[in-house]
């Protein structure tokens, strides 16, 4: 291999990739090291990056300062209900617009696409007023009810996936006189499993990271989610960066684990748009 080719195909790519990796990784390093510093080490000049000794107690302190277990539980309940809702509704609707030959399918698909770009703020205030009139403020209902009607993005994702499922699969069952519901439940749903896993994963991530929804609907601190709890922590213990970073790390860990174990599902969302037809 010539020197020029070696530079072009190996040295240059790796140099660039490593430089970018440093930019992407260093904030994580900073996050974890800060979470392990002692309070006076945080404000030491000149600052040191690696703590003198690891203060694992900061994590315990973060849990004791605010009820993180409670926030975690509240968040998980919301996530779970949303997942159930999306897994019920999104595949039904996707099936209707991709597998059933009826007049509404194209119209619904067009509207589903259009609503993906509709800013949620336009509906926000009337929705709040509806939920207030129903007495649902300070409950998880406003944050979860929407999932039972299917989110446009997941309907779109499942439709894309369904286009790739061979029709012969259901045709044979139809010949045998199976009803549409049976075909859906016993033949189509099982083939959709990987796509449904993607929907469940994204629903979880979406509900777990949501901030504005809980901020608007949950006033009672006992009902707060992790995002609200973390923000409240910032307010009340603003200068205690070591605890705040420990709390942030605790919150980020489930997302990082999900990412490591579910990488292929993340990749699917990337390709859903490129195979868009």
């Amino acid at each position, binding site marked *: 291999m010539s020197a020029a080719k070696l530079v072009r195909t190996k040295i240059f790519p790796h140099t660039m*990739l490593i430089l970018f990796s440093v930019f992407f990784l260093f*904030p994580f390093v900073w996050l974890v090291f800060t979470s392990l510093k002692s309070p006076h080490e945080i404000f030491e000049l000149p600052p040191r990056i690696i703590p003198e000794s690891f203060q694992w107690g900061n994590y315990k302190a973060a849990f004791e300062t605010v009820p993180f277990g409670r926030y975690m539980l509240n968040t998980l309940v919301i996530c779970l209900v949303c997942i159930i809702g999306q897994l019920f509704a999104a595949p039904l609707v996707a099936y209707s617009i991709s597998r059933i030959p009826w007049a509404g399918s194209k119209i619904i698909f067009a509207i589903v696409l259009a609503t993906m*770009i509709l800013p949620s703020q336009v*509906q926000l205030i009337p929705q709040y007023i509806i939920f207030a009139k129903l007495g649902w403020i300070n409950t998880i209902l406003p944050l979860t009810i929407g999932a039972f*009607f299917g989110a446009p993005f997941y309907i779109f994702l499942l439709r894309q996936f369904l286009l790739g499922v061979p029709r012969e699969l259901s045709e044979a069952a139809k010949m045998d006189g199976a009803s549409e519901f049976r075909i859906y439940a016993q033949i189509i749903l099982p083939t959709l499993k990987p796509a449904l896993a993607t929907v469940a994963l994204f629903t979880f991530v979406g509900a777990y990271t949501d901030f504005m929804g809980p901020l608007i609907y949950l006033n009672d601190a006992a009902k707060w989610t992790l995002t609200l709890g973390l923000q409240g922590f910032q307010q009340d213990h603003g200068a205690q960066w070591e605890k705040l970073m420990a709390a942030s790390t605790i919150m980020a860990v489930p997302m990082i684990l999900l990412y490591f174990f579910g990488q292929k599902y993340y990749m699917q969302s990337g390709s859903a748009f*490129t195979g868009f037809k």
Partner: protein
Amino acid sequence: MIDSISGKTSSRKKGWTRREWHYFWLGLVFASPWIIGFLVFTVYPFFSSLYFSLTEYDLFNPPRWVGMDNYKAIMEDRNFYKSISNTLFMAFISVPITLFSSLLIAMLLNFKVKGINYYRTIFYLPAVIPGVASALLWTWMLNPDFGLVNIFLRWAGLPDPAWLLDPRFTKPSLILMGLWGSGAGALIFLAALQGVPQTYYEAAQVDGANWWHRFWKITVPALSPIILFQLIMGLIGAFQIFTESYILAGGKAGSGSSLGGPGQSLLFYAVNLYQEAFINLKMGYASALAWILFIIVMLITLLVLKTSKRWVYYGGE
């Protein structure tokens, strides 16, 4: 775009056969969750917010009709203009920078080198961190005295701005934070890049085109539909920036005392709307803001789509 539903659906003859009715009801039943949700949570709120925008409403007393007063008041509201100019800054400066960075990262990830999967994992990692946690992390990263960014800048002998405390640097802080998360966009570009036939590049190389030419003449046109998609989503996203601003400005849950940050430099459209609706309880006024938002977003989308005919190439045309 919408072509895949098998024949027979759009037969426009008078009177449907039994089979067609059968499928109509079946389709309706399967789609009913979405239809109900769409009517109750999209269509109804959409129009009722138009009604509320013509009233004065504080949630406790019944709405009072005020005609166009809210819209007139908005036209004289300094916060409104401040929020528009801050938001447009993000839309026209931050969005293109982030898009370019995503594209660059995607191209790096498209190198055929050893360990590329590890790099891909690292580049995407920041995108999975919850917005609140990453905003808190960056608040600390950008601490003027003790933050990592300024430690580095001082070490390199560069000026060390006060970042989140200086109105001139709050939005650049937000851009920096956005760049950190640009691996998400890169992943979508990467999937598209891998679909570009290698023969295009080989042919161009034979013709003596350099890297720069290949980028502008092959990569960008081939990816233009995805660039368009990400551009539109980015622009719409700019009008919805909320969490990052709320955390970076250090707002207090419930009181909203310091929404908008130093010199209102982080007062974005969605933040202003939230403030009017849920802190000042001016539901009518905020509904008018929501409708103006809707119109702006539609105009921008149409404008981008219109100009896109000149620079977006769809394969096979």
